[in-house]
């Protein structure tokens, strides 16, 4: 086996105190070399531990000792004490904040693992194309339990008591929704899984379907039993071929095992699932639009009520939940309402999956208990901001959400806190922005998305968002005024107040929250015609530094619009009126004589 008897794992995440990690590795190796131990002890640089607050971290294997806030000069102590004498360095151990006691074995340190995987419990663990692996992990036990031990009412009560709220964005109580669908009497009812994850930056539903499709199938069957439906439909984006493939395999296997189909477990309950494909329309995430789309129509929303629970697919009572909501259901059934409701905050129970993306080191999929702070998510689990830039904001809830800032970092994340902070949970996308991102351009970017995705049915969303987008464009070009900011706000509020569906009712959120949180940046654009982040091309000016210019004419030759004049060997000048800000001159200049103001 290994020639190494011991491994020293040094946190090399690019976040937090990454700069020091290299020095620690260096020092450790030097120390080991000096003691002639390099052949038996290996020093390894690892990825982020997600505990950056206490970084840098050194973990000693095989005994799982976990040293925190290690400094390069601690290398000597670790080698001398721990490696050679086998004595743990007490002062470097993590102290439990409550008991103040040192925790030496990271196995007892689950609390540092801020993530808790419920919806993602099987993702990255089982082979999604093998139903046996799901069964070995207690798959379909929850379905068995409700079918043989519980009445539909009891099941609904359990889900209600768990306090789970829909993970699709609205945050409506799952159990209550099921109850409404159950109450409406009909010969046919439908269970629909909304897998039309169209929110840019969100990929949790895709990951669940690709990693653990059976959890969704099982939950849909449980829902079917609860509300009295025997047909399930999954509305999935056509852009997710792998998820579709795995769902097809999973449905096939479940049917083969008799876990879908007629008379499941011999209980007389029958349930089967078919797939319906989306075709690229974000608005179909809205449940009435989704239902119309499943009916072969344009995905236009209709006024609620009637809610789908009364009249949905084929005008029958229909219950729509999203992928993540369903994926947690089997766990809730097996572990109970009390267990689930013990996780999270008072009004938001359980865990939430977030897709971390943007200017963050550890882009990825995470699942944390409700109530975890943004700081923990971004700076611990996410490993902080890329390229040692400054954190500026985080867009939660995608184009429907808002941009939260420094001052919100310690806010516990839950449905209500996010709304209070001017954003929303949405599907769980978190896009982290740094100092280089212009908040006017970002708002414009989100509006561009809404304009493209608006179905066009109602006037405020169809035209209003277009006007918002145009006005933001004007501001980016330095053509805005202070009065325009007021107009922006009024238009935004009216669009929210009057739009037909959730898309229009939330589309101005990015503008409103960014204007609110970054007012001075907006003012800079309209009054000083400056873009503090240096993103807005029209507000940039390329200038030649007279001291550096040698008159080589390279810039003048490369300029596509002949905006640069100057004689050979004489200082050149850029005519800012003609300049199109393409940046070619700056790229060409070998003397660093061109800069942006």
């Amino acid at each position, binding site marked *: 086996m290994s020639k190494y008897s011991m491994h020293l794992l040094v946190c090399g995440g690019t976040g937090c105190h990454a700069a020091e990690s290299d020095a620690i590795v260096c020092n450790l190796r030097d120390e080991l070399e000096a003691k002639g131990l390099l052949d038996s002890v290996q020093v390894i640089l690892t990825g982020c531990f997600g505990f950056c607050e206490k970084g840098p971290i050194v973990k000693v294997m095989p005994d799982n000792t976990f040293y925190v806030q290690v400094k390069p000069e601690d290398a000597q102590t670790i080698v001398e004490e721990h490696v050679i004498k086998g004595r743990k360095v007490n002062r470097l151990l993590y102290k439990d904040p409550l008991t103040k006691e040192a925790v030496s074995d990271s196995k007892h340190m689950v609390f540092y693992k801020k993530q808790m995987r419920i919806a993602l419990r099987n993702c990255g663990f089982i082979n999604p194309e093998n139903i046996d692996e799901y069964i070995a992990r207690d798959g379909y036990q929850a379905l068995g339990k409700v079918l043989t031990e519980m009445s539909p009412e009891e099941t609904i009560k359990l889900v209600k008591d768990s306090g789970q709220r829909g993970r699709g964005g609205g945050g409506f109580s799952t159990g209550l929704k099921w109850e409404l669908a159950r109450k409406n009497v009909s010969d046919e009812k439908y269970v629909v899984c909304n897998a039309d994850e169209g929110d840019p930056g969100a990929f949790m539903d895709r990951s669940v379907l690709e990693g653990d499709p059976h959890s969704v199938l099982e939950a849909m069957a449980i829902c079917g039993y609860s509300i009295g439906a025997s047909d399930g439909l999954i509305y999935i984006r056509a852009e997710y071929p792998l998820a579709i493939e795995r769902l097809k395999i999973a449905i096939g296997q479940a049917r083969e095992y008799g876990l879908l189909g007629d008379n499941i477990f011999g209980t007389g309950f029958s349930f089967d699932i078919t797939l319906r494909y989306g075709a690229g329309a974000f608005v179909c995430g809205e449940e009435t639009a989704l239902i119309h789309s499943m009916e*072969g129509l344009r995905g236009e929303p209709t006024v609620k009520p009637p809610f789908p629970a009364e009249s949905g697919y084929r005008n029958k009572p229909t219950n729509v939940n999203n992928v993540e909501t369903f994926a947690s259901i089997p766990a809730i059934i097996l572990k109970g309402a009390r267990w689930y409701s013990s996780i999270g905050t008072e009004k938001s129970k359980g865990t939430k999956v977030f897709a971390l993306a943007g200017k963050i080191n550890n882009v990825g999929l995470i699942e944390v208990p409700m109530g975890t702070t943004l700081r923990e998510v971004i700076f611990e689990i996410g490993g902080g901001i890329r390229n040692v830039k400054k954190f500026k904001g985080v867009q939660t809830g995608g184009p429907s959400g808002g941009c939260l800032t420094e001052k919100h970092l310690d806010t516990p994340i839950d449905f209500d806190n996010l709304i209070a902070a001017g954003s929303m949970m949405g599907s769980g996308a978190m896009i982290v922005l740094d100092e280089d991102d212009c908040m006017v351009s970002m708002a414009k970017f989100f509006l561009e998305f809404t304009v493209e995705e608006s179905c066009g049915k109602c006037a405020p969303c169809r035209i209003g968002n277009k006007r918002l987008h145009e006005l933001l464009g004007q501001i980016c070009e330095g053509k805005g005024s202070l009065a325009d900011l007021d107009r922006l706000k009024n238009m935004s509020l009216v669009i929210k107040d009057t739009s037909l569906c959730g898309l229009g009712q939330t589309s101005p959120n990015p503008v409103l929250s960014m204007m609110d949180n970054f007012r001075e940046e907006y003012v800079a654009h309209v009054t000083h015609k400056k873009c503090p982040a240096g993103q807005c091309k029209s507000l940039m000016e390329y200038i030649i530094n007279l001291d550096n210019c040698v008159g080589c004419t390279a810039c003048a030759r490369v300029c596509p619009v002949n905006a640069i004049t100057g004689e050979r060997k004489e200082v050149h000048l850029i005519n800012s009126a003609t300049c199109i800000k393409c940046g070619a001159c700056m790229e060409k200049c070998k003397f660093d004589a061109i800069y942006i103001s």
Partner: protein
Amino acid sequence: MSSIKIELRNEDVDFIKATCSKFNSDPQELINVLHSCQEHFGYLPAEVQEVVSGHLNVPVAKVYGVVTFYSFFTMTPKGKHPISICMGTACYVRGAEKVLEEFRKELKIQVGGTTSDNKFSLSSLRCVGACGLAPVVLVGDKTYGRVAPDDIKGILKEYEK
């Protein structure tokens, strides 16, 4: 007077017919039928929509209404290698715009366009859910992650022969 000339090859008409039958000629299956047809023909020309309309008993105006509603459906043939640049938020903040710009420059076509030799077509799409690889470019079925403007020439080269 109906002056649209619907010209299709016999086997094309048969394909559409068979596709509609596969979905029980149920008007509610229109979107699934259109998916199958687009996969087969590469796009959804008016002729195909007319035939689908006839077999599903949905007015052709409604079929067209559906085709133009969903961005996945297209009425113009794509290039042999359709290039899509993800413009989701994650890709956007990591420079997807510059990547798109570079493709435009290299291929000398606009978004939505196809090169004159029908080799490449260019489109932007919204989030493929591969945000960890931002910015992401799709060429046909192949996904390219962490694409920088400098990579574009190399990517295009792979498809030249």
